[in-house]
């Protein structure tokens, strides 16, 4: 019987079994950002500890950075304090840092891959639940809390419980207008927001095999929304092509040797899985969330559910009431106030290209505020080189600087009151986008582009 990538990488990184029964796992790459790290650095100082492996640690700023006016000091004194705190910490502890003004700055889960820091076969940790994104490369990547950030800084290790593996095979061709975002929303819809608890998700099948790295990252990114802390795709030629020439990737002959090793850590063809699920790509449609968790979603032509027919009637009636929807109402035609294209889920170059293709020559509806926030400075530059920024501006979108922006309401980009936002981000929790009563509809960037133009939820295929 063969072995899964998860088991191979786990075993290669196991330092020892701890007396607690947990595994002490070496972490190959620790990505640090401003929000979940200050208390961890303070604990290091308090205890007189050093950073175990500064050479395996890399920091950037994304969550609190303004995307419009980025001059220092920030208007928000708390954000300025947080920013200054990370700058002081990276200087004091001697860490590599892509700060504001650095060409490499961006959302931590965008720049890791872009710079070639993220590589197949690695264990990766970051104080952010969307660290699962890096699994797209065949890495095993964990979102962690601040006490664990402290652990990794001090020891380059985590104490973890082993995970089961569920293989999710996406088979067949995706219909036109159906994207990686729709695939992961469909997976969460089917398996539930806690279906992945205790599991790593291995995404496989011919549809995933054909996907670009950007698409694989979108899928792995939202593993956590399905309850799976870890999600990954086995590395293949698509992965290796992406890696080639990246700043921190192996170069020359070393790259060829790396490819051999990277190939060897992929799951064996006869690997055994704890669970196996098939999703038929051909049956999927563009998906929109109607509720207050990422599992509460429907096809764009479907109607929102009625509490009476639901397994948890109270959850459905609460969600409908928060969203201002009535049972059985179609989601298509729901008016939107804001359109947001951005976040670690969908702010990569191919996302921006597809959205730009849809809005080109059209204009954002009068009542809609629309913004595009590239995932990194590198992506912003590449998009500008192709003239995508001009396409978006001409269509009435704002073109912003790289950061997490309106995904989570920690910076000036926030919903106001009970605004409805068509959003390419990952969470539609109550209040998620910065207004306690704000409403989020998750969808693909192409669908956000269509909603921006129509001023309401619509099937992108009818505009295209």
């Amino acid at each position, binding site marked *: 019987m063969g072995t899964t990538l998860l088991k191979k990488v786990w075993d*290669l990184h196991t*330092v020892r079994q*701890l*007396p*607690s*029964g*947990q595994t002490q796992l*070496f972490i190959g790459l620790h990505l640090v950002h401003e*929000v*979940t790290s*200050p*208390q961890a650095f*303070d604990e290091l100082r308090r205890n007189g500890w050093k950073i*175990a492996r500064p050479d*395996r640690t890399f920091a950037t700023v994304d*969550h609190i950075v303004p995307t419009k006016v980025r001059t220092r000091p920030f208007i*928000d004194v*708390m954000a300025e*304090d*947080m920013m200054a*705190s990370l700058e002081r910490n990276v200087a004091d502890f001697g860490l590599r840092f892509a700060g504001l003004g650095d060409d490499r700055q961006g959302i931590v889960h965008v720049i890791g891959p872009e710079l070639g820091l993220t590589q197949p076969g690695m264990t990766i940790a970051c*104080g*952010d*639940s969307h*660290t699962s994104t890096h699994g797209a490369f065949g890495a095993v990547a964990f*979102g*962690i*809390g*601040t*006490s*664990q950030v402290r*652990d990794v800084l*001090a*020891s*380059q*290790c985590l*104490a973890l*419980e082993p995970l089961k593996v569920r293989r999710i095979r996406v088979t067949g061709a995706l219909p036109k207008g159906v994207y990686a975002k729709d695939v992961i929303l469909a997976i969460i819809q089917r398996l539930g*927001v*806690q279906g992945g*608890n205790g599991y790593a998700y291995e995404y496989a099948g011919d549809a995933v095999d054909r996907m670009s790295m950007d698409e694989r990252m979108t899928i792995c990114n939202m593993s*956590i929304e399905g*309850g799976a*802390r870890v999600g990954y795709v086995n590395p293949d030629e698509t992965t290796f092509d992406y890696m080639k020439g990246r700043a921190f990737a*192996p170069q020359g002959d*070393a790259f060829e040797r790396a490819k051999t*090793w990277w190939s060897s850590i992929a799951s064996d063809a006869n690997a055994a899985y704890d669970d196996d699920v098939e999703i038929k790509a051909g049956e999927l449609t563009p998906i929109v969330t109607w509720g207050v*968790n990422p599992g509460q979603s429907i096809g764009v032509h479907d109607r929102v559910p009625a509490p009476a027919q639901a397994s948890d009637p109270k*959850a459905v009636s*609460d969600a409908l009431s928060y969203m201002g929807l009535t049972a059985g109402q179609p989601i298509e035609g729901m008016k939107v106030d804001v359109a947001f294209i951005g976040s670690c889920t969908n702010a990569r170059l191919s996302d921006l290209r597809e959205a730009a293709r849809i809005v080109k020559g059209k204009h954002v509806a009068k009542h809609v505020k629309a913004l595009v926030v590239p995932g990194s400075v590198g992506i912003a530059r590449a998009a500008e080189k192709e003239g995508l920024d001009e396409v978006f501006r001409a269509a009435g979108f704002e073109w912003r600087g790289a950061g997490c922006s309106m995904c*989570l*309401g*920690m910076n000036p980009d926030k919903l106001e009151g009970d605004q409805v936002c068509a959003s390419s981000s990952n*969470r539609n*929790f*109550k*209040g*998620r986008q*910065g207004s*306690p009563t704000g409403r989020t509809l998750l969808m693909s960037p192409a669908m956000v582009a269509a909603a921006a133009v129509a001023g309401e939820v619509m099937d992108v295929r009818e505009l295209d």
Partner: protein
Amino acid sequence: MLRITTISGRAIPMRGNDIDTDRIVPARFLRAITFEGMEAHLFEDDRKMGGPGHNRHPFDVPAYHGAAILLVNNNFGCGSSREHAPQAIRRWGIQAILGESFAEIFFGNSAMIGMPCVTASAADLKTLQDLVERNPRTEVKIDLAAGTCEAGDFRCPVSLPPNVRDAFATGTWDTTGLLMDRYEEVDARAARLPYVAGF
């Protein structure tokens, strides 16, 4: 380090599935560089939603003040990895959470700060929540080793993965010391990885 084997005190019921960490502590409060005072923002947005049709939030009911045990339902703590969420709950005074199930990262973050997340069946949790709502003065006791919860005359089985239970029992739930111990083994392991040693 503190050994944790039993948790007892009054309880606070918090009904509902899939309560996410954005609810527990909205992101705007994560701009602080310490966890101090985080309890002031616990469920802040939910607590401010007053008006007709909204019952008082459990954390605003005086009878529940001073509770040591939080009673929740399914998939509590889903969403972001922010440790601010369990920190706010712990700093409010909660010492253990009893629920149907917990999101994985939240479970781990809570363990790291010495706050066990213990599970019980949906039916038992409903009984406990009803019981505490009827009589908020009810003393609840969770015995981790025995795997039981007692509340007045009611008694039910509860569980915690054996590793985690043992870590609490032996006072090894804060892992930093363990991980830093025998550091030479860490470097030796790393040196055998081709991407560390150089391809």
